[in-house]
């Protein structure tokens, strides 16, 4: 994921979850953030501060997975299946991406 704008995030930093063995609910992506897809990648546009972000395919899949009713484990399982990586790597990747989304204010507080 690449941030292309210099505007600071209007939202507080959210730390990655580290509690093992607990089903952690997945945060929800903001509904007002605009998504445009191009060739399997996506551009996200934040209408509040005008920031734009480019997501590659894997980041886009995690972003699209961020909706109510899902757990972080679900996202990690999807990453395992799509990219043939082990569970631990998938969990780390998902947590990093969620943290990035949160840092840039793209998730519902």
């Amino acid at each position: 994921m690449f941030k292309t704008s210099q505007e600071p995030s209007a939202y507080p930093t959210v730390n990655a979850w580290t509690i093992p063995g607990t089903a952690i609910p997945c945060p929800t992506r903001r509904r007002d953030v605009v998504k445009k897809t191009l060739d399997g990648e996506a551009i996200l546009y934040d209408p509040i501060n005008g920031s734009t972000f480019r997501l590659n395919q894997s980041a886009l899949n995690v972003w699209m997975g961020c909706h109510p009713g899902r757990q972080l484990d679900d996202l990690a399982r999807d990453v395992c299946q799509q990219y043939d990586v082990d569970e631990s790597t998938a969990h780390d990747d998902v947590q990093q991406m969620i943290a990035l989304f949160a840092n840039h204010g793209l998730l519902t507080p």
Partner: protein
Amino acid sequence: MKNQKSQSNLPFLRLNIGPMQVAVRSCLDQFTKDLSELYSHVRQPDIYENQLDRQNMLVLEAVPSPSINPFYKRYTVKGDGEDLFVHLKQNEVLPYLEWATNWRVMARCPEFLQIHAASLSLNGKGLILAAASGSGKSTLSAALMSRGWRYLCDEFALIHQQTLQLHAFPKAICIKEGSFSILDELGMPRWERKHYVKAFKGNVAYVRPSKLSQQNLTATYPVQRIVFPRYVAHHQPVLREMSRSEAAIELAELSFNRHTFGGQQTIDTLTEVCRNARCYRLETGDIHRSCEMIESLMRDVDIKPTRNIQAA
């Protein structure tokens, strides 16, 4: 320059540049003469102040700046009645008047997304050369024009928000002194007066649009190729295809009127433009080979996305 006349009695030069009618007046005889010569290909009969259609025309003036020192002559460029550039020296007036034209086009044409880019077309297919100042867009535009391309504009790409097509605004191409030798190699006549200077560019010369570029100015062109050029001295040209999403975001960053056009509208427009185009980065120090590579892009040569194309 001498012979500053009383301004209010002077006629306006009238120029038809692309979709815009531009009316220009100045107290400086030499400036008026130079402008007439440079834009003789689009000149219409002169008009007076009471004949101006301010609704449909860009009205530009170069007037003396107020000064108590008669030996310290400075000038102000006004656009549609507003002071845009002040305290200019005589040899800065023409280049700054061109900038004033750009600014007023931005203000007066909100239906266009205006990107800091050159635009050209070949056989009805549109090309955008997008880059910040100093990247060689104008020189590359002049070179392509000398090879038979239709030149649309070297300062901005005008993309209509509904049709997504490129529109022409063929001002004279402004070339800085460092590129004069390239114009000479291309055999392109340049119009220059030693006394014109454009801010950080230094001494500048102008290249008039070709005859082809002056015809059918209302025609529009679908964007088929987008190239982000970067001049690297003595570098063999390398062309690399880039992702369309990356190109769309970079074009958004280069949009002059992104905030007035609307942030989301900008992204929507550029996403669709890039969806229908192929996008490339070009690093080059050789203009002739760069032109050949760009022409090969327009001939529907299939270039695989992961390959770097290097000049032989």
